[in-house]
């Protein structure tokens, strides 16, 4: 996709955020008018922003994590997510997770409706070996497709923290097969599937979070999908979360700068006070660094190299691994830097920053959530420590 096409999508996202997302936040509620979200996501779908697995859906090709992301790379999706996050990180997250589900289904040749991807489990710590093969020593995945004595299969296990936007009709479940990862699609109303709301969270209220208890779901109630290891999903997941964190922080910085020029304290507009300049300067440098890091990670996730190897087994190709390391590092660093940037921006606003009206505290809650979700920062550190000698060749790639 050439730059002008990307710019056109960004403009679409910008206008969508201004026209549809901003009004959602003009209510006295800490997370906006959540009753408007289903309709808002439908509009996002019609605008081609929200991807669908059905080839006839407007966003199938060019929506966030639409089909074009496989051929053209993640740049457009990531930039659109950052743009949406300037309006609301929760809405951006909903579009992100819906897109991830659509990508999984579309790559598997399924046209099922909106789906959420269920990978993480209550007692599974993510490791490289686990990403490649769920049966490597030390890895224990409890969700599996079990062949019963009568020849039928049942799906059983548990999934934790499944982020499912409103309108989710089913789940793409990663399971431990006999010697590789397997995937299947389970409808939300399948017999044996219990969906438990995780409860009130710090931020991203738009995107529901659930735990799944999968209790002998019979084979008639789930559809097997081609086996693939979760590398591609994780790359997109972490790049998307990083992009949302960045967009959220960018908007916080704009608000802080604007406020600093309007607020008078200490005999002057506060943007002239060194104490405020230090905060804004720090926040600005972190946002700049985050943006550069994200673009570097996106460049590493080349099209063609981010398709996970077939069969869901083995070490995968080197490019996939490099992209995964890069995405993990981006998620870790950008998540942390964006929390610090947003908290500095909130500090500029002082007491007003702490009140719901100014929407800065929502940005901080969202930033905190983005930092800690979908693999803890320390687990990413442990993962990166294992990554060994295969250093990302991002410098070389940048010279193209």
């Amino acid at each position, binding site marked *: 996709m050439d730059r002008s096409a990307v710019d056109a999508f960004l403009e679409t996202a910008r206008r969508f955020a201004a026209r549809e997302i901003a009004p959602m936040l003009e209510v006295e509620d800490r997370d906006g008018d959540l009753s408007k979200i289903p309709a808002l996501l439908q509009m996002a779908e019609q605008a081609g922003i929200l991807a669908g697995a059905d080839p006839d859906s407007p966003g199938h090709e060019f929506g966030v994590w639409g089909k074009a992301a496989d051929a053209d790379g993640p740049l457009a999706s990531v930039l659109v997510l950052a743009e949406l996050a300037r309006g609301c990180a929760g809405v951006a997250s909903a579009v992100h997770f819906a897109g991830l589900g659509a990508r999984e289904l579309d790559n598997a040749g399924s046209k099922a409706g909106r789906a959420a991807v269920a990978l993480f489990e209550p007692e599974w710590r993510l490791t490289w070996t686990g990403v490649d093969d769920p049966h490597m020593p030390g890895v224990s995945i409890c969700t599996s497709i079990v062949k019963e004595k009568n020849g039928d299969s049942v799906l059983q296990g548990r999934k934790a923290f499944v982020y499912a936007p409103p309108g989710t009709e089913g789940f793409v479940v990663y399971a431990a097969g006999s010697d590789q990862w397997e995937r299947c699609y389970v409808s939300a109303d399948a017999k044996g599937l219990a969906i438990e709301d995780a409860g009130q969270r710090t931020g991203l209220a738009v995107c529901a979070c659930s735990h799944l208890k999968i209790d002998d779901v019979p084979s008639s109630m789930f559809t097997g999908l081609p086996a693939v290891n979760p590398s591609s999903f994780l790359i997109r997941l972490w790049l998307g979360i990083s992009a949302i964190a960045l967009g959220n922080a960018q908007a916080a910085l704009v608000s802080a700068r604007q406020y600093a020029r309007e607020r008078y304290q*200490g005999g002057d507009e506060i943007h002239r006070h060194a104490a405020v300049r230090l905060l804004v300067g720090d926040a600005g440098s972190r946002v700049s660094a985050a943006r550069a890091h994200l673009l570097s990670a996106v460049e590493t996730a080349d099209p063609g190299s981010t398709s996970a190897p077939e069969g869901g087994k083995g070490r995968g190709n080197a490019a996939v691994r490099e992209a995964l390391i890069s995405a993990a590092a981006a998620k870790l660093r950008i998540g942390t830097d964006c929390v610090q940037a947003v908290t500095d921006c909130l500090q500029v606003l002082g007491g007003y920053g702490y009140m719901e009206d100014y929407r800065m505290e929502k940005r901080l809650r969202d930033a905190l959530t983005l930092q800690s979700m979908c693999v*803890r920062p320390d687990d990413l550190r442990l993962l990166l420590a294992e990554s060994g000698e295969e250093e990302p060749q991002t410098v070389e790639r940048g010279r193209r």
Partner: protein
Amino acid sequence: MKAELTPYGSRSRLGRLGRISFDTKPISLWDRDTATLPYPFRRMRRAFRDFARQQIAPHALAADVDPHSFDVKPLFLEAAKRGYTTMFLPRPWGNLSLYSVATAMLLPAALRMEEFCAACGGLGLALGAHDLGIAPLFVSGDTKALLGWLRKIYAEIKSGQPSICAFAITEPGAGSDVEETDGAESAKLGTFARREKGGWRISGRKVFISDGGVAKWVTLFSAQEGKGAESWTCFLLDKSMPGFSVGRRERKMGQRASDASELILEDVFVPDDRVIGPVGAGWGINRNVLNYSRPVVGAIALGIARGALEHALEFCDTARLGNRPLSAYQDVQIRLADLIAKVQAMRALVWHSTRYRLPFQAAGAIAKSYCADTAWEVCTAAVELLGDHGTLHGNFVEKAARDARLTQIYEGTNQINRLAVIESQTGPEAEFPSLQLAQGSG
């Protein structure tokens, strides 16, 4: 693991004298720290903790979810029964410990706020803000205020009335400006008092007033008409005064159970006997109140951080990864140890800042700013440590992070507090080594 390699096992192999010097008592850091206190403070600390566990903790999460539906007055009355809301006067009028006045005046307040806020930052503040409202009556040196109004307020409380007091300085156009010297000089104030026969007419607005919506009494600071902050005078208002009303109740990120309201004054007549301290001495009273309150805000931050740490410890001990608790993993242990060390450092600083004979500007500002920043670090680290679980409201740590964030803002932002440290430490209180040497050799 071989038992004899652990501290507990290895100690048992020592002789009696060796065992005496090797302390491996299985008691918590909380108990150890408490044991370092003189007996009256030890007793207080235990009582505060019991109250927090029994009366505050059960309401913490619900009050945070729906603060506008939560009535803090029954809790205030429970605290009042135990004397926790009448601690500025000695018996028979109040429950001020004369021992604490003689040794460490602010330590009881710090101990109380740590325990209350470990259970809930919002409810802790709701109780503690009452003392902030009372403080001008105490520090003004005005005997009429101390022996008249303060006794009256405490008598109401002891008779079972929820006579909460609030402290009102912040205005829409003057937040940081009412907390420090340079800002005050050019502050754009909006609340003014006009002299009339027998009293003053006050008009204006105060914002973000903790307990403003639930208080009966308010110590309010106003400039005199046509003058600046140097003319500030402290007035004692009550809600029955015509023209005095409560405006908007703020919706906050954290400490949500504590009310923060706008106070509206429309030509409120305040008689002369309601002037606290000399006319025009309000700025001095305000500055000195901050000297007393800032170490206590440090204790609030400490309590919130400790609450987050305790919940994180509990989570890591019960949640399992594979066949081991989370706390058995070295990366988790490293992080928990960091949090424990930070909380201990915060407590050491708070307790140290309350042990000066009288509170003073640098001590309070250092304690407040350091503890507030560290509390935010501790609480956000606890959220990170728990990952997705850390973002769940029911696991407490994300609430603690939201609560901790406010301690970096109120009672002067941490930037203002840093300026307060420097104001005194590069001014009359400065001591520079090279200067001392030069003076010595002269």
